[in-house]
């Protein structure tokens, strides 16, 4: 091999990283989401006096901490081009297991560890079936959805209250922030999940492999990357995040109930997509997903401030937002970026090894 080139003399290339003035196309969706969030918040602030306060902002995080955690896990899965429909049911199952174990007298730390491990194992099982038996993630996680929900009913049909002191304390702790604002421990957990998620995705080889698999699975395999580890790993992460979300939900409601979190997987998917992650995989950021959750939360808050509007308006607005974002991504993908146009003949997308995922 050749010897290393002599050190470059002259100004150090530090500035090279931040080529100012132009935002790379891949950041645009996240920026758009950020802009949308600011705009929505401004609208709320203009319309309602009490809206534009720091605490309303913090409440968005407090009320949606569990959803943030779910969205982080979901981001990993969607980045590989997969989908995890089981997360809502796993949240419910986690609340049930937590409540039931606490009622049976287990100590809180043991319960927490057991629930987190259980969620990860559930994800591991689904990931292994998806990867090794080559079954579509949509089907496998749909089965997971029914299975986890069914297990809830097996534990108990009615709601189980949580009286454990640790959970009570956690739910009543308010961490003061400045003069008259506060956070909850759940928010810290959620923000930590975002930070860890971003770290893993961008600064570990596992994370880069997740992106590579989403970009082109066949190539990733031929490049000698750990494709199997990444594909199974993302479901483990998602399962773990679901269980963690379930614990936060238990703290939030101080009970476990089989009918908790019905349809929450769709909220998580919506948050990820609004956050700018492509459903086909390979492009997106956990920070975007956090913003996606905040956008959803803001819509909800505005509509609750409105008072007269029914809650189904939330669904309508979220539906419209989703549509807008998918269209935006499409425009970004084929528009200004000199992306090679697809084959002129009407044809199925070529070159992808896994079938397109189901809609969210």
């Amino acid at each position, binding site marked *: *091999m*050749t010897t*290393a*080139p002599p050190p470059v003399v002259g100004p150090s290339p530090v500035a*090279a*990283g931040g*080529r100012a003035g132009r935002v*790379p*196309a*891949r950041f645009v969706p996240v920026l758009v989401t950020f802009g949308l969030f600011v705009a929505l918040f401004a609208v709320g602030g203009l319309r309602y006096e009490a809206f534009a306060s720091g605490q309303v902002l913090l409440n968005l995080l407090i009320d949606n901490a569990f959803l943030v955690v779910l969205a982080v896990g979901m981001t990993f899965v969607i980045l590989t081009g997969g989908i995890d429909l089981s997360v809502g049911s796993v949240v419910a199952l986690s609340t049930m297991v937590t409540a039931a174990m606490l009622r049976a007298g287990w100590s809180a730390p043991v319960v927490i560890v057991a629930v987190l491990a259980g969620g990860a194992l559930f994800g591991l099982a689904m990931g292994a079936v998806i990867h090794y038996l080559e079954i579509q993630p949509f089907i496998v996680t749909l089965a997971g959805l029914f299975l986890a929900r069914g297990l809830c009913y097996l534990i108990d049909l009615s709601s189980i209250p949580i009286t454990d002191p640790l959970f009570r304390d956690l739910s009543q702790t308010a961490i003061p922030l400045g003069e008259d604002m506060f956070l909850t421990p759940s928010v810290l957990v959620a923000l930590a999940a975002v930070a860890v998620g971003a*770290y893993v995705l*961008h*600064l*570990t*080889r596992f994370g*880069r*492999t997740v*992106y*590579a698999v*989403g*970009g*082109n699975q*066949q*190539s*990733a*395999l*031929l*490049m*000698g*990357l*750990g494709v199997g580890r990444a594909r199974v790993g993302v479901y483990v992460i998602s399962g773990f995040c679901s269980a963690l979300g379930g614990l936060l939900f238990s703290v939030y409601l101080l009970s476990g109930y089989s009918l908790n979190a019905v349809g929450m997987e769709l909220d998580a998917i919506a948050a990820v997509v609004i956050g700018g992650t492509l459903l086909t995989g*390979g*492009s997106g950021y956990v920070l975007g997903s956090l913003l996606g959750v905040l956008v959803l939360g803001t819509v909800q808050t505005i509509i609750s401030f409105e008072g007269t509007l029914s809650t189904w308006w939330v669904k309508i607005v979220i539906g419209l937002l989703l549509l807008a974002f998918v269209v935006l991504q499409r425009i970004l993908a084929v528009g200004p*970026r*000199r*992306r*090679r*146009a*697809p*084959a*002129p*003949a*009407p*044809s*199925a997308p*070529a*070159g992808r090894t896994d079938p397109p995922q189901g809609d969210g």
Partner: protein
Amino acid sequence: MTAVPQPGPDAAPLLEMTGISVAFGPVRALDGVDFRLHAGEVHALMGENGAGKSTLIKALTGVYPVDAGRVVLDGAEVAFAGPAQAQAAGISTVYQEVNLCPNLSVAENLLLGREPRRWGRIDGRGVRRRAREVLARLHLDVDPASPLDSHSIAVQQLVSIGRAVQVDCKVLILDEPTSSLDADEVAELFRVISRLRADGVAILFVTHFLDQVYAISDRTTVLRNGRLVGEYRTAELPRLQLVSAMVGRELETLEQLERVPAEPASQAVAPVLAASGVSRRGAIEPVDLVVRPGEVVGLAGLLGSGRTELARLLFGADRADTGEITVDGTVLPMRTPRDAISAGVAFTSENRGAEGVVGDLTVRDNIVLAMQAARGLRRIPRRAQDEAAARWIEVLDIRPPDPDALLRNLSGGNQQKVLLARWLATGPRLLILDEPTRGIDVGAKAQIQALVADLAREGMGVVYISAELEEVVRLADRVLVLRDRRPVAELAGEDVEVDRVMELIATGHGEPDAERRGGADWEYGRSDA
């Protein structure tokens, strides 16, 4: 035509494959093939499309399981379960199609899976520095932070080569690495290869360019129909013998390769294509181009000179900012490929992986795809589909000649032929061919060139793009030379010759430039060993 097995240079081979057999269902892709690779040699693996070259490579690196045979690397028997293991054992591979991740940056693609780390986390600055080093070694001037899919196929091919050569490896495998490269990039690659050879790396090299085989390889192994034909010292193997070993019969096609183009069309004939002042910002400056029926117009220029960009504008695959395009006298809206298709324009893209073939459909379905698109919703009767498939499978010698074979199971060259068939089947008025013979073997290349000449003689207009100047010059009646995204000259008649075109490409005007001309032939390689 006797194979003379040569004893290895001195030591035992670094890699020895014996009796390798691989079958895909009823297809025997490899049948008892032996292959030896020595340290410090460049070994060319030759054979027609579908001979089994890529399969041999994939069997070695564990992509496909072997049905029979042993592989010995460095004295120990090995059986890799996948590319990751092969890589860990010191085998670095560039597979035939560009196998990178389009969604990641150039730097990441170079270093995926081997990023420099500090305390367990990827060292971003280290990644960029290493990437810049690798790119500099290939003299490739691209921004390491730019997304891979913003670059041409050639650059992507160079990136995948850069990825393979940057690590210390014992064995380097290059499966058709030069199929999209221009002479200069090939020269650069050969410099890198020579350096590695001098360092004792064993290099396996697959190509369909005979010149490159003779320029760089020490020994040559020829496969035909999944069987070993023989192993030769390249220097002692006459070209004709190499070709006949590949195709299995004495071949007149080499003479045919020197065929002359049809007589030029008269100026009086109304043009089939007339483009005036078409341009697109950042892609190509305004160009005027006229193609008459029966004429083959070549586009020549280096990589990035705008030749592909121009072709895409003519077809409407990208929108032109300015200019007007008429086909057969009618101005085209030229906003989408649809307009072009219904006006009788066909276009084969250089990037077959991403834009062309549909791997999960059969050969027949792929061939009738564009015909069907031209007809809209009315289905083409099955009889007509079968006829079209049978006809083009025969004309282009697509192997296996089975219209029901799934396209992704065909060898790279045969996929390219199917793509060509798809557009020929529409019976276009104007055919735009971007690198149509990329990855196609010598015999089939001559056939395709002959076919293009025939089609022109029957009145079709053809725009022909190829990185191989000889090919362009041989076929074209006129050549439009592009340089730095600008047309610099149009040559016709007597002026269409390789040296003239090369001068124009190098200098932008007709004056000779000795240094650049030197780059045309393959006189480098061994000197710096």
